[in-house]
């Protein structure tokens, strides 16, 4: 069985912040990644991704995308991106980006169709991912835990998900990052071992049945 997953893949501090109080990630970029950052392999399985307005604006500025739109293509190719926003945001020239607002459920349906059997990546922030979780649309959390505490900042996931809803499926160390993977919701209910088996079996090159 192959499962199309909606995944929250993000870096975080040990104390659960994805950005500091100044909305900076400088603390993250100082960390030794080791020899193989797993993001490339992860993104190869992604067919659609979504982010909030703050995250989009951060990437725009950090990667100088309005002046150097090629940077977007180098990072994300033609994979379609949905940006949730209530404001008018400048588009990256020629990038495959949709600006939307409102119910995540309807948008998620469109993303799954566009992803064509590949996974859906939720970039962040925490509250947007929380809205997907509220709707039962979050299947997996993959955290790259940086060796940092921040004490304050943008929260990883401002929701209560109990041990009945989350199942730890993998722990790995790469460089100074600890990678923790969790099955969420119905996948956690499968049972711990089954969840690990299902989550590790998805080969994005094969056609997938959409379980929803």
């Amino acid at each position, binding site marked *: 069985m192959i499962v199309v997953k909606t995944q929250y893949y993000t870096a975080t*501090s*040990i*104390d*659960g*912040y994805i950005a*500091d109080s100044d909305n900076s990630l400088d*603390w993250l970029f*100082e*960390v*030794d990644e080791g020899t193989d950052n797993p993001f490339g392999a992860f993104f190869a399985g992604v067919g659609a991704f979504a982010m909030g307005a703050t995250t989009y604006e951060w990437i725009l500025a950090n990667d100088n995308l309005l002046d150097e739109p090629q940077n977007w293509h180098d990072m994300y190719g033609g994979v379609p991106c949905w940006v949730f926003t209530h404001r008018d945001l400048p588009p990256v020239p020629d990038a495959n980006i949709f600006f939307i607002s409102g119910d995540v459920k309807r948008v998620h349906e469109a993303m799954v169709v566009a992803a064509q059997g590949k996974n859906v990546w939720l970039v962040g922030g925490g509250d947007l991912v*929380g809205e997907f979780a509220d709707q039962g649309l979050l299947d997996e*959390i993959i*955290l790259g*835990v*940086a*060796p*940092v*505490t*921040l*004490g*304050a900042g943008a*929260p*990883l*996931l*401002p*929701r*209560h*998900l*109990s*041990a*009945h809803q*989350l*199942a*730890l499926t*993998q*722990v*790995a*160390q790469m460089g*100074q*990052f*600890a*990678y*923790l993977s*969790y099955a969420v919701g119905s996948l956690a209910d499968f049972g*711990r071992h089954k969840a690990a088996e299902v989550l590790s079996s998805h080969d994005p090159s094969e056609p997938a049945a959409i379980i929803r």
Partner: protein
Amino acid sequence: MPKTSYYTATTLDGYIADADNSLQWLFEADSGDNSEFADFFASVGAFAMGRTTWEWVIDHEDLRADPGKWHGYYGDVPAWVFSNRPLEPVPGVDARFVRGDVRPVHAEMTAAAAGKDIWLVGGGELVGQFADAGLLDELIVGVAPVTLGGGAPLLPRRLESSRLTLTGARQVHQFAYLTYAVS
């Protein structure tokens, strides 16, 4: 060289207790036989906690009715409890009530531990004071498969990667144990 370690369970979003100061969320997670803690505590010669943690342990375990339980958990290892207001001792429990600067207390604990390690139980603010004074050597977090979205913070300080080195990451049942050296 004896170490001073903050060993604690936490949620993956960095809370050690929920907004109601409960640990119910923690007991729902599969920790196996909890031998991790037994192995850790075997090397501990003194331990410290804040008032909230103390009151939680005393109330949760109903130690005033059954003080013998304390000895069952912690043997003869002495405890120090930081509190700005007077606390009522529990008969048969070796806890010393202290306040103020953590440095002289740490020196006293080091002497009492007689070569064994020092465990900081929590909460986060007390451990932060040890970190501020350069007295925290190790951080061991057992990450439970839970998010709370709010509660008592793990460690309300900014410690960047120049001060923290990941020395271990492994899975024990549903917990991820992450160990960091602090400099």
